[in-house]
């Protein structure tokens, strides 16, 4: 192999590795609630649900629950839709929507799968 190719492949590998180095993470598509309040626009907020806080309002057809964002702030989420079937198992929830009138109005909920593919416990009701 000509030296040109050896040097070239070396440079490529070094820079791919360099790109893979995790420098200070400055940006995720997810924002904190504070950010959501500030911008008022449609954002994605990631956090965990507060167990036991969820209820379904049959009249308005909304699903209401509380979640805690990554900074630890707890807030109410109003989701215009039915409760996701795997909501109870959610490790993390991403709510997409906007902060209006003291609640976070979500148009979409994303549920992060459990990071373990573990068998369902027998006591759990199959959904």
């Amino acid at each position, binding site marked *: 192999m000509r030296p040109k190719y050896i040097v070239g492949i070396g440079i*490529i590998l070094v820079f791919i590795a360099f790109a893979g180095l995790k420098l200070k993470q400055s940006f995720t598509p997810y924002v904190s609630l504070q950010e959501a309040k500030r911008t008022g626009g449609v954002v994605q907020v990631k956090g965990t649900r507060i167990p036991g806080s969820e209820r379904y309002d049959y009249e308005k057809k909304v699903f209401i629950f509380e979640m805690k964002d990554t900074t630890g702030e707890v807030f109410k989420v109003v989701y215009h839709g039915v409760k996701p079937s795997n909501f109870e198992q959610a490790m993390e929830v991403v709510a997409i929507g906007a902060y209006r009138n003291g609640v976070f109005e979500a148009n979409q909920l994303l549920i992060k799968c459990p990071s373990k593919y573990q068998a369902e416990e027998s006591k759990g009701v199959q959904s």
Partner: protein
Amino acid sequence: MNLRKSALEENVWTLLVKSNIIFQKDFHLEFRTRYAINAIILFAVISLTAVSFSIGPMQLDPPIQSAMLWIIIFFSAMSGLAHIFVREEEQQTSDTLRLVAPPTAIFLGKWVFNVVLLFSLEIIVIPLYIALLNVDVQGMGAFLTIIILGSVGLASIGTIMAAIVAQASTRGALFAVLSFPLSIPVLRSAIQGTWTAIQGGGLADCLADIQLLFSFTVVILTSSIMLFEFIWRK
């Protein structure tokens, strides 16, 4: 027999000198016809005005502003960057060029030309963009760094794809089709970085984007230099 010494020798220095000569030649030709520069600037200005016209006095959100900027730059680039190789092919000068210069020098010369072409586009389009779309750039340093790195990245992909496309039969559409998948890492980081910069982020805040843009450009450029002779030599 007294063969000229330079006739059979190639080293890094002569390569750089020769790529500079190629660049000057292309610059000179472009200056005379202004084909590529007109095409890309017109494209960018038209799409900017169209957007500005349709949103009126409204202000777009920073993510849309930054995406808009890179969409305009990308498609303007797609309308002009291929010209550098297509011109040689259409005017049948590519064989002449093959017989007088080493492939690496040709690639580097054309690459510099495309980088300069994109920079000249941006000198005109960025102020227009800021004015027409009411963009309030709070982190100017980071903004300009991302623009420069992103354009060098796009120019690198554009140049090597132009060399491929120049030898194919359907050039226009194919150029964008080939370039887009490879440009996604550039576009994605550039849009994120621009977004952060518009909202007042400094260089440190878009470090991850800068790191990705920089290493990606180096990787594409290195592999292009290694692969170009396979494209160029039939």
